């Protein structure tokens, strides 16, 4: 009952004219960045951080969350119409979505993608509503040792679910953790790796690094590959699916909601993973799996639902534990920190009005997205006609102003540039960048909790196995580490066998 009373309170806040407007702007901008290949939700959120400075915090988080789930919603449009995934989570949608377009069923594919996204998104919000407060209550009992063990699990999960080999992902994680140690030590006040540069006393800024690695680095990488393809522009009356398509979609949509929501809880590339798992599940369950890839509606319904449900799932560890599970969420966390709000176990109990207004706004936002994405599909498609070479200078300038506006610091612009170059080279080397940025953000907490645990136990490491939750989490993280090492060794053996053949 409490949940519904709180939700009603949330709706009261979210239904203010300003918050509805901000939710609409977030969803619209999110759909646009989702449609445009090369600008994902992360860059979309990062670019609008300066815009939130003048807003009160509830409005700011409502708008930023709107961009996050709006980008997932919009990502399917280009996959279906052009065979270009607007967002990496929509890669799978290309397989059957584009084939449907070639068969003249683009409208139906877009409709089912939007419908599935709405169902998946809405069910996931219900999940957040019930699970996040429970998890936050549980986390209130956490001491530093439990928090340390939980973060350790998050890092090893990142290692297993990262896009590249385990060693490469772990290298990125450790590099992020190391850079997170730069600045003044929070427990002793000692300066570390600052080289007398005052701008580094507070550590390396997350905003310039995130914007640099993802926004700037992405542009450096993409400048060589701008390409304009033919775009199919469906008419509104072509959008309705037929009865057979509707019948074939409902089960994949329900399954996709469950798959996406639970995979979304895991750190790493949950959106991509959820859409792949959903696609594989649908293919396995299909009577004629060989038809997948030739324009099956299930191949659009399942993955598109799953990646939207994953956005909801990913909000739970973020809001309840303060652990961002993906780079876009991490940038959202940065924005909240700038506004003086720290997501985590105390967030829901101390700032219930913000939490419930956000939940309510997500229900509203999901409806706005259905209303936006279907009728405006023609407009979004027109955006794709703007050549990338005309777009990237604007994005670069906004990245620079966005970074500069945080602390009015030229040094942070240099950090942005340096991070962009680093991001460019890591992309060339095919290293996954998400673990790096997540480690940079969570790193200081990991170190703090590790040292606080030892201080509390008087220097005894037994604190990590005497408390049951800590022990359970440490055992789980060790199992994950063992599994990853086993996978890496097996991979090397297989490569050697293949070479011998």
């Amino acid at each position, binding site marked *: 009952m409490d949940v519904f009373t709180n939700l009603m309170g949330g709706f009261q806040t979210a239904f203010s004219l300003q918050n509805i407007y901000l939710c609409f702007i977030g969803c619209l901008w999110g759909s646009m960045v989702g449609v445009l290949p090369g600008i994902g939700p992360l860059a979309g959120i990062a670019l609008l951080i300066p815009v939130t400075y003048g807003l009160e915090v509830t409005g700011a988080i409502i708008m930023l969350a709107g961009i996050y789930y709006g980008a997932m919603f919009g990502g399917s449009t280009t996959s279906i119409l052009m065979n270009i995934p607007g967002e990496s989570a929509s890669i799978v949608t290309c397989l059957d979505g584009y084939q449907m377009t070639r068969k003249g069923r683009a409208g139906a594919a877009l409709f089912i993608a939007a419908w599935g996204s709405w169902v998946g998104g809405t069910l996931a919000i219900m999940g957040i509503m019930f699970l996040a407060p429970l998890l936050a209550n549980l986390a209130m009992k956490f001491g530093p040792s439990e928090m340390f063990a939980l973060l350790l699990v998050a890092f090893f999960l990142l290692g297993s679910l990262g896009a590249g080999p385990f060693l490469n992902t772990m290298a990125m994680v450790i590099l992020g953790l*190391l850079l997170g140690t730069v600045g003044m*030590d929070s427990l002793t006040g000692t300066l570390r790796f600052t080289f007398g540069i005052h701008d580094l006393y507070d550590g390396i800024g997350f905003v310039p690094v995130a914007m640099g690695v993802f926004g700037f680095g992405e542009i450096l990488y993409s*400048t060589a590959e701008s390409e304009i393809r033919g775009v199919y522009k469906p008419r509104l009356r072509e959008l309705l699916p037929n009865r057979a398509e509707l019948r074939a979609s409902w089960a994949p949509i329900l399954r996709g909601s469950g798959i996406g929501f639970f995979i979304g809880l895991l750190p790493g590339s949950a959106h991509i993973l959820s859409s792949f798992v959903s696609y594989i599940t649908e293919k396995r369950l299909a009577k004629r799996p060989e038809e997948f890839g030739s324009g099956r509606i299930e191949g659009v319904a399942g993955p598109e639902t799953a990646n939207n449900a994953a956005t909801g799932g990913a909000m739970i560890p973020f809001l309840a534990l303060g652990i961002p599970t993906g780079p876009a969420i991490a940038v959202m966390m940065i924005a909240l920190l700038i506004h003086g709000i720290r997501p985590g176990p105390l967030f829901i109990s101390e700032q219930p009005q913000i939490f419930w207004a956000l939940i309510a706004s997500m229900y509203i936002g999901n409806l706005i997205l259905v209303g936006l994405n279907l009728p405006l599909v023609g407009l979004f498609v027109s955006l794709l006609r703007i050549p990338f070479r005309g777009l*990237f200078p604007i994005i670069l300038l906004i990245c620079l102003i966005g970074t500069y506006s945080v602390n009015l610091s030229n040094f942070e612009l240099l950090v942005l540039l340096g991070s962009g170059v680093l991001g460019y080279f890591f992309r060339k080397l095919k290293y996954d960048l998400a673990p790096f940025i997540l480690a940079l953000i969570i790193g200081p907490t990991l170190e703090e909790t590790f040292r606080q645990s030892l201080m509390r136990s008087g220097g005894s490491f037994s604190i990590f196995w005497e408390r049951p939750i800590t022990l359970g989490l440490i055992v789980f993280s060790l199992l994950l580490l063992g599994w990853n090492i086993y996978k890496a060794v097996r991979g090397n053996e297989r490569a050697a066998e293949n070479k011998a053949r």
Partner: protein
Amino acid sequence: MNIDRAGGLFFFLVGLCFLSLSLKLPVGKFTQPGPGVFPLILSLLLAVIGTLIFFSVRAKGKIGWTKDLENSAKPLAIILLTLAFIIFMGPLGYLPASFLYLFGLFFFVSRFKWFVSAGVSGVLAAGSWYFFGKILGIFLPLGLWNL
């Protein structure tokens, strides 16, 4: 050396660098771990992982420096223009610096005609100055000429 090994070498060298710097920080005791413990462990781990990456990837192939340099012409131009923007934004002021920066990007990198580049850059520089500086109230450098 191929590109995979170059990645391993990079991590090894960064690990080594941080390790040498970490050794100068106080390590403390088990009861009171110092600020040097965490960086020390991490830098050691990074150097080890870098070494493992270096030796676990195949040694065949070479980095195609010439081809890579050719492909990197546009990114290099963007990096240099951005560096110039960062350096000159203070003395020139935001408005002229952003105009020159955008013009450089549109004309030299995107290869638009000069009058198109100049027109679009002018509109965008003025528009961004008005939106961020006037509407959002972000302080943007005025430069020596108070522009």
